[in-house]
């Protein structure tokens, strides 16, 4: 994995064991400054444990977690002052207003009252909660609470933002807005963002880099394109084809094409694993052989393979879409 610029987050053989179970297994993670990194994996893969170790809230069994060169276990206060954390199921004090909740965060961070008031109104403005800042949090919807969570991060003004399952339980429209906001945190403010999620389809849109994290191990890491090569080298492309009539000859035709590695049939659809984009040649051939082309779709094969391999098994594939 190539890395340009400074590395902000680094873990060295980070390991956490709970008794016999290894939650995180010799994790070596490097996140460059200003990047959005998606830590993707099914529930129970050890994502939250990793995050808690990065914050110094859980002690690693062995290995190190460094944020800007600071060891999270040895110097948790320094690390926590640089990192903003939005846990999954973020909670606020229900009987306090949004502003009061943020004031508390500001006071825990030692921000002077005047300064925090300024920051809070700017943050609420930015996440679109300025109107309801003086209402009790108990009256907020889930989406609003999530946005208040983002405002909470903005008040703290951290270098690194860690979001744990930020899109969980939010409607598609809300997710789109939230992702835009998260993207803004990185692009406009130059912050580094680490998102943990099992919703690959949602998160991959905004991530510069992703890591696939399964059973405590990082099995692949890099940009989306790089991941394909890492996980299944050789087959770069998958074509989904529907044509009529779907007979024996069609299968033979596909197999005979140059560049096709394998052909799978799912009902009346054919999945072709190809080395290169053979769509022009494919269409030409189909027309020549008097087949009617009903559908031709290019899929980025590797990620789909990953989804199928690691997520469908866990039953998250449906939710992911």
């Amino acid at each position: 994995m190539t890395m340009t610029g400074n590395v902000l987050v680094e873990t060295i053989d980070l390991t956490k064991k709970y008794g016999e179970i290894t939650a995180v297994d010799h994790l070596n993670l490097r996140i460059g400054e200003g990047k959005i990194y998606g830590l993707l994996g099914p529930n129970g893969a050890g994502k939250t444990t990793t995050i808690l170790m990065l914050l110094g809230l859980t002690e690693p069994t062995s290995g190190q977690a460094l944020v800007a060169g600071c060891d999270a276990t040895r110097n948790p206060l320094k690390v926590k002052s640089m990192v903003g954390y939005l846990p999954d199921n973020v909670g606020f004090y229900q009987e306090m207003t949004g502003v009061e909740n943020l004031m508390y965060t500001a006071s825990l961070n030692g921000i002077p009252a005047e300064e925090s008031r300024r920051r809070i109104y700017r943050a609420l403005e930015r996440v679109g909660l300025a109107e309801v800042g003086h209402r009790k949090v108990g009256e907020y919807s889930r989406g609003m609470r999530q946005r208040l969570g983002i405002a909470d991060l903005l008040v703290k003004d951290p270098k690194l933002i860690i979001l744990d399952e930020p899109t969980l339980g939010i409607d598609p429209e809300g997710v789109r807005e939230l992702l835009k906001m998260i993207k803004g945190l990185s692009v406009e403010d130059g912050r580094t963002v680490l998102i943990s999620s099992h919703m690959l389809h949602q998160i991959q849109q905004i991530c510069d880099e992703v890591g696939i994290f399964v059973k405590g191990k990082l099995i692949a890491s890099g940009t989306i394109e790089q991941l394909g090569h890492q996980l299944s080298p050789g087959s770069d492309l998958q074509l989904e084809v529907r044509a009529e009539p779907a007979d024996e000859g069609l299968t033979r035709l596909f197999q005979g094409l140059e560049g096709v590695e394998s052909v799978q049939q799912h009902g009346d659809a054919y999945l072709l694993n190809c080395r290169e984009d053979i769509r022009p040649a494919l269409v030409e051939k189909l027309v020549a052989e008097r087949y009617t082309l009903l559908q031709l779709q290019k899929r980025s094969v590797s990620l789909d393979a990953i989804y199928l391999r690691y997520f469908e098994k866990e039953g998250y594939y449906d939710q992911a879409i």
Partner: protein
Amino acid sequence: MTRPFSIFKTFSVDLDWNTVYEANRGLLAVMRKEMADHLSQKRFFILALLTTVACLASLYVAASTIRSTVGENQIDFVFLHLFTTSGDTLPFSFISFLAFLGPLVGITMGFDAISGERDRGTLSRVLSQPIYRDALINGKFAAGVAVLALVILGLVALVGGLGLILIGIPPTLEEVLRILAYVFLSVVYIAFWLALSILFSVLFRQTSTSALAGVAAWLFLAIFAGLLAGMVAEGIYPVTEASSTQQVIAQARLQQALSRISPTTLYDEAITTLLDPSVRTLGPVLLEQAIGAIKGPLTLGQSLLLIWPHLVGLVAATLICFAVAYTVFMRQEIRA
């Protein structure tokens, strides 16, 4: 700003107040917020109101009883009687009301200290701020004790002040000191319940379980522990008509020793001694021992000496509860 000062010639300390403040910034922020929380909470308001009404009722009864009896025989320490006297219409005095309701106040303030934060999902968010982890639990306990001290002092001042108007006899210095000692003792006692309920809130994930455990502990220690002590003592040293004096005394001693395991007993004995200077001893006394004793009140110093073990026991019980809660909390996983 650095203020170096030397304690001894060879030992000088560079005490940087900024550093001290910085290190405790989280603690102070938590304390401020928790105190504000307690004072604005409805459930705290309800309990404080209940306690106040009960105490005022007891004051009224005490004052009218004192006024009707003060002419008949000479009473020493009239002012203290405001707190200890009960009447026919209301068989509870101020101190018995506070002893009864105080633990409930303590439990109410602490039962959701940690489990509530977990439930609401605020625990990990708060602890991810640059504060030490113990700042949270320390701040909560300190805020609770501060609010308790405020409430008890306020209540005693209210009752004392109204009592002064009702009976018109000003307290002597010794009475004031005894009352202050009583306030201190009560704060420590209720702080014990606060620490115990914080401990339950650390141990149990469910807030309702924690509340129930607190109430169960209160019922057991306040009511059943005494009964149980009597039963055990009776079983070990059975007393019949023909029993020797030693046997009777052994039973009484054992029963007292066992019931003193409960902080409630310690507190009851201690405040009785403090507010009633005529109490000279807490254990069983033989008639022969009392012969020749000059009837008269104890001085404050003597009373304090009598209850010193009680005071130490109560402080120790409070600290042990809090220490266990602290240790468990520091080792606990943060994730919900």
